[in-house]
Structure formats: C-alpha cells, structure tokens
C-alpha cells in the first residue's frame, strides 16, 4: 500500500506491506538507524520516536497506521552543524550516556517531558523517574540520566530571562546535584 510520512520534516513516499512496523521502515527503508531495536516487544524503549509530537515505541506502531503523520527521530534532533540539543548536552555533561544504546530512545522519550513542561515548573525527580519507566538502560543506573534532565530543565529556565548560558549551567548542576542527593 502507498504511504506518505513526514520524517524529520522531510516528506517521504513509499509502498509498504500492511504488517510492516514503523521501526522497520525507519531503519531498513529510510536508513535512519539511530532508532534501535532492543526487544521488539514494547518493553525496552530503545525504539522511541515522536509521532505527531508524542513519544511512542516505533516497534508498536504499524507503518500504515502512522501514514499521514509527522515522525521525529534522533537524526532530526541535532542541528545540521552537529551541535547537540540542550537535553543532549545536559545528558553528556552528567554522564547520562555510557554505551549509548539506550540513548536515542531516552532522548526522544525525555524530549516530550522537557517540551511538555517547558512553560511551567520543571518536572520533579519523581516525575522524571516515572517518565523513564519505558526506557531500560543497562549501564547508567538512571541517576545520571535524571540529573541530565534536571540540568536541561534548569538551563532552559535560566536561559529564558537574562543570564549567560555558562552561569546558568553552573547553577543548574548545583541544583541538580542537590535535588538528587536530597532524596
């Protein structure tokens, strides 16, 4: 069947079998191998992409059912110059990525949390941990990922009014460390 999709802002048109999964189209059809397959059963979260803005597991979506939608993958997160997004940079600084296999899924899942809370209070540590229930990580133990999200949220809030990014990041890392140790 004929399907059109917008992937990272680019229109794609192709023909697919009804039983094809979105993750198969992204990796095998479109060569976007940043999206990983860890379990193929909906448990691990390495295949998370954004579908019309919401984070979803691309191994639990039919390509046909995604037809007409906008898909965002990890490849679209980084600007063309290779610069990291605020969330990616914060995860890097907090050592929130080790082997890196879970990282694309983490970034796509956590991106929705960061975006959806952008206008208001930063998510609490409990909310961040709850948001991570769909993403398994074998390496980090999650603490550094949580700190990364806290740093990203703090930097974004500090940048919004005045203040330099550098002093905001320093303040953010202090706040993040305090909040994690305090619980």
């Amino acid at each position, binding site marked *: 069947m004929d399907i059109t999709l917008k992937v990272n802002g680019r229109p794609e048109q192709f023909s697919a079998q009804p*039983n094809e999964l979105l993750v198969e189209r992204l990796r095998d059809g479109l060569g976007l191998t940043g999206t990983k397959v860890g379990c193929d059963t909906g448990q691990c979260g390495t295949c998370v992409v954004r579908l019309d803005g919401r984070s979803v597991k691309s191994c*639990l979506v039919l390509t046909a059912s995604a037809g007409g939608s906008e898909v965002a993958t990890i490849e679209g997160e980084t600007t063309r110059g290779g610069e990291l997004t605020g969330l990616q940079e914060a995860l890097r600084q907090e050592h929130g990525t080790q082997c890196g296999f879970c990282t694309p899924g983490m970034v796509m899942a956590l991106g929705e949390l960061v975006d959806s809370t952008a206008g208001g209070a930063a998510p609490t540590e409990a909310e961040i941990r709850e948001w991570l229930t769909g993403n398994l990580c074998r390496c980090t133990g999650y603490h550094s990922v949580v700190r990364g999200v806290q740093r990203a949220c703090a930097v974004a809030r500090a940048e919004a009014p005045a203040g330099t990014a550098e002093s905001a990041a320093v303040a953010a890392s202090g706040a993040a460390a305090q909040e994690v140790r305090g619980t």
Partner: protein
Amino acid sequence: MILAEFDYVRPAGLDEALALLSGTRGAKALAGGQSLLPDLRSGADRAGLLVDIRRLAELRGIGRTTDGTRLRIGALTTLAELATDPLVLAEAPELAAAARANGDPQVRNLGTIGGNLLAAGRATDLPVAALAADAVAELAGPDGRSTVPAEELAAGPAPAGSVLTALLVPAAGPAAAFEKTADRATRYPVCATAVRITPGGPRIAVTGATSRALRLRGVEDRLRGGPYGTDAVLAAFRAEPRELFVPGRGTSAEYLGHLVGVLTARALHRAEQALAR
C-alpha cells in the same frame, strides 16, 4: 517483525468501520495497537483485516452528559489523556489513577480506554476502575447502538463486529481511589483494586488476584457502614471463599488474596481522606 499477514484499512467514519468489521471475516478493530500488535506478533491473537479506528474523531472527547450526572468518555481517549483530564481527575479519580498506573508514557500515549477495557487474555487496569465506578459501555454494532454495564463487559468478550464508542461514568467527586501492585518487568498489574464510597456503601472491584476483574459484593456487604480500618478490610477479604483467589505466575492464591486486601484498605483510606478534604 510481525510474521502474520493481514490487510489494513483506514475507514473514514464509524459507519464504514462497522460495515467492514461486521462484513469481513477475521476483521478486528485497531486502536492504539499496544495490546493487539504484541498479540499478533506472538501469535496470541490473529486477524485477517485490521480496521484502523485510531483517527475517528467521533470516538474522542470527554464531557458531561446533558443531565450532568455522568461523564461520557470517548473510546479513543488515550490513557495519557484520561490520566490528566481535569474533569476525570475531579469526578472519577479512580479512572485517572488507573490510566496513570498503566505501562509507561509511550504506551499511554497510544493506548486507548476502549482497547484497555477490551484487551483479552490478561488482567488490565481500567476494567476494575470501571467496575467500581459502576460505568456503562456504549457500543455500536451492525444492529445499532446498545449499552452494556461494565460488569457484563468484564465477564465476556464484546459482541463481535461491534465498536465500543464511549464509557459512561457516574460522577463521584473525590470519593474513589485505585491501587496497584505492578509486575516489575511488564508493568501489568499483579493485582489491582478500585473503590468508590457511595451513600449506599463502598463499591469494591479487584483484578489480578481473581480469574477476571470482579466486583466483590461479599466484601462490600461486610464493610457497609464502615469504618474501613485495615483489620476490618482484611477480615472482610478472609471471609471470602478460598477458591475466589487464583494463583498467578510465582504468586500463591493466599498471597494474592492478602495483597489485594491490603491494596483495598489503602484505597478506601485514600478515598476517605480525599472526601474529608
């Protein structure tokens, strides 16, 4: 990869969906796919044609019924929407809590209330909340519209060829709660309980510990008039026939019967606290 082969169609409206579902052998509705796709992959379920209803606008939306006493929740409301909807949080808090306890954010973003109520073969979270709320399901079928109490829906498969269009939920205010012990790996309930405190007494429903989601009228009768202290609730559960509780994977019937009693005591306590506020 899904090895099973099937056809796929995306109907433009509910009438077309109903015609496809009742007129095609092996046709199944596809909503969020968060139960159906894993089941098709594992072979636990099969389908000849998937009728994709996910985008049907007429099955969405949350509002009050015209008389104001009930909420009407469209079947394609996602679990994420249900968990955060202000009206549901205020008037049917056990449903919002059951949705919030479901899986993870990605499953909740796609999974729908209709799919969770109808997902066969496994204990799921929403049916207990619907039982405690005394909710009624609205169905559309080849022979027109009908309503089915949540209790009947939990007892057997939905009539073939029909689409669940909405859930009608009596408005309760804060007097309701949901508690769950989740399986660490799958997030599905080991057991879960939902309670609603009404002027006529408590309504109590459990799942996971029993063969399917059930209202426990014996426990309700024993607790009528309160108080709902932990000891009284556990005693009310111990008075149930032993066969009511069935062993699970690595869990004895005795353990599940006790655990679901503890969860119920917690839920009743929480609902009472919310009422007093």
